[in-house]
């Protein structure tokens, strides 16, 4: 629980969503969504495509009105405030820069609308472009810039308006891996320097975990879990969160009593309680938390069915009585090897059954191709 101390000083609420419902063509996009975002917080909406994260962002920006529910900004209801009067600015997915204007004029756009004096505009634009390392591109046309540079212009353009909240709609999705990592660091730095509230939308769980103070995991128009990155990773609330954030072995089990759970045909000690007696549960074990040993020394044992080299470690799929586990190991197992497995009570995480329980299976269908589909940006 020390994660709480990593958060910035807890301040007043800046954006509050209350029981938001949105549907398109009869399909429910946001289902009774409520959320409170604090001043200066770096919040990430994380979820698969169609989960409603971008819709939520568009409601905050004012591009979309909810069918029902209220949006508050610093305690004031802003449902009827149009986008151009809201003190939020957006960085769009494909940047949406003005193609007819050069870098300078793009960044100056908001300031010109506010009718700021030319000297002030010049000062601010120069300052913003310096912040995103684009000072030498000030007179360049937009089309002549690379994707990463356009992204920086978009950041400078949004921040030049001194927004209270910066909305980022998958801003790094179009960049290649190396550039994306650099921009993540840069955005994080900007957040710390400016103290502006950041709301980021992404489907990349790594991005969400490494950048945010608070992660909001969404699916099917509902918030599945809100928490710090460590909370979300270590204490997933249901099978969806466990499956979406990182790799997880999600096994059906039975909570025999407090601190005692049965799965894979064996009883284990665990640190969770309060689930009742003899209650069916989902058990999560992260691939890096399984210790591999010889079959004789293992508490449970299985057969290695595939080995994939991943650089730092190997990813092996192990068949334990028909259930395929994924385990990360540095030892050199080979296909067909019999191994033993040891799991520490700390590493066993128990979740209540949910609608997602039946949707997540083992790793038997696992292949790299499937993996790519599920995690397009890894």
């Amino acid at each position, binding site marked *: 629980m020390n994660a709480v101390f990593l958060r910035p000083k807890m301040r007043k609420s800046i954006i509050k969503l209350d029981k938001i419902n949105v549907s398109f063509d009869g399909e429910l996009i946001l289902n009774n969504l409520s959320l409170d975002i604090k001043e200066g917080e770096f919040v990430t909406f994380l979820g698969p495509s169609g989960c409603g994260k971008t819709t939520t962002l568009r409601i905050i920006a004012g591009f979309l009105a909810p069918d029902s529910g209220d949006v508050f900004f610093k305690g004031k209801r802003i449902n009827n405030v149009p986008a*151009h009067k809201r003190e*939020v*600015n957006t960085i769009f997915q494909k940047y*949406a820069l003005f193609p007819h204007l050069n870098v300078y004029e793009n960044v100056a756009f*908001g300031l010109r*609308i*506010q009718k700021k004096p030319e000297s002030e505009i010049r000062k601010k634009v120069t300052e913003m472009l310096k912040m995103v390392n684009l000072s030498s591109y000030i007179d360049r*046309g937009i089309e002549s810039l690379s994707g990463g540079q356009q992204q920086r212009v978009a950041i400078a353009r949004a921040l030049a308006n001194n927004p209270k909240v910066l909305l980022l709609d998958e801003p790094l999705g179009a960049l290649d891996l190396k550039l994306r990592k650099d921009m993540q660091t840069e955005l994080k730095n900007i957040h710390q320097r400016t103290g502006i509230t950041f709301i980021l939308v992404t489907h990349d769980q790594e991005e969400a975990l490494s950048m945010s103070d608070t992660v909001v995991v969404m699916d099917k128009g509902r918030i599945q879990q809100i928490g710090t990155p460590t909370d979300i990773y270590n204490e997933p609330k249901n099978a969806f969160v466990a499956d979406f954030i990182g790799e997880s072995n999600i096994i059906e089990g039975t909570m025999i009593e407090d601190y005692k759970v049965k799965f894979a045909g064996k009883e284990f000690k665990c640190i969770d309680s309060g689930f009742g007696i003899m209650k069916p549960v989902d058990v999560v074990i992260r691939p890096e938390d399984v210790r591999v040993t010889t079959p004789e020394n293992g508490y449970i044992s299985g057969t290695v069915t595939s080995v994939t080299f991943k650089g730092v470690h190997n990813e092996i799929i192990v068949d334990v009585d028909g259930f395929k586990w994924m385990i990360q190991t540095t030892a050199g197992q080979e296909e067909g090897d019999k191994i033993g497995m040891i799991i520490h009570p700390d590493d066993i995480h128990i979740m209540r059954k949910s609608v997602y329980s039946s949707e997540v299976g083992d790793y038997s269908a696992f292949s790299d191709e499937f993996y790519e589909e599920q995690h397009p940006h890894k």
Partner: protein
Amino acid sequence: MKIKPNLFPYVLWMSFFVIVPLILVIIFAFSTPEGGFTLDNIIYATKYSAVFWRSIVLGAVSTFVCLIIGYPMAYCIAKIKANFQSVFIMLLMIPMWTSFLLRTYAWMTILEYNGLLNKLIAFLGFEKINMINTPGAVVLGMVYNFLPYMILPIYTVLSKIDKKVIEAAQDLGANKITVFKKVVFPLSLAGVVSGITMVFVPSVSTFVVSKMLGGGAILMIGDLIEMQFLGNAYNPYLGSAVSLVLMVIIMICMGITNKLDEDPNEQNMIL
């Protein structure tokens, strides 16, 4: 310049149907009937400056009216639902499938002194108005005929503007009017320029409209050229010279128009 083999048929086409005729016009414009070189045709052509001026003014007025009517129409079409858009565009195109001559002739019967419109006016108890054979009738005919050529390119450009760019402008504090002034209109200039070109050029050089709706009273360049080739005045040398002068005038006009869209970073100055 090296020409790729697959371009060859087009190069051939362009040579035979554009460059060779152009050279012929230039040769004729500078020739005497006996085949000698002369500047007389050009000098003579400039004596028709009143006709040139009238053509340019009527052409410019028609183009301006087309722009005033066409831009808002294109804007509205680009804003409605996609399936309605195609219906509108279809309706816009259908008249273009009937003969230009027929459509102009129809206007004749409407605008005539004893035509449909005056009959209606008389029926309502008003004095009949002399409408046909006036510059107004010619402009009306040109606007009616050439309006789709203004709307289509503007519509095409407007419908391609990225919605996100408009949202970005709103996001940065621009209200609807500012979004239009600072983003939509500048981004649609390319369509405006090609619309102006596609209306102005045929308007300046038309002879059907001026002949039918202007009677003999409103002589335009097109009529003048026609007279030199098909009329009693038969003089292809003068006709070529007039064509050449017209071509130069149009080139100058288009050069000025294109300036509108030339430097994307200086558009704020126009607005």
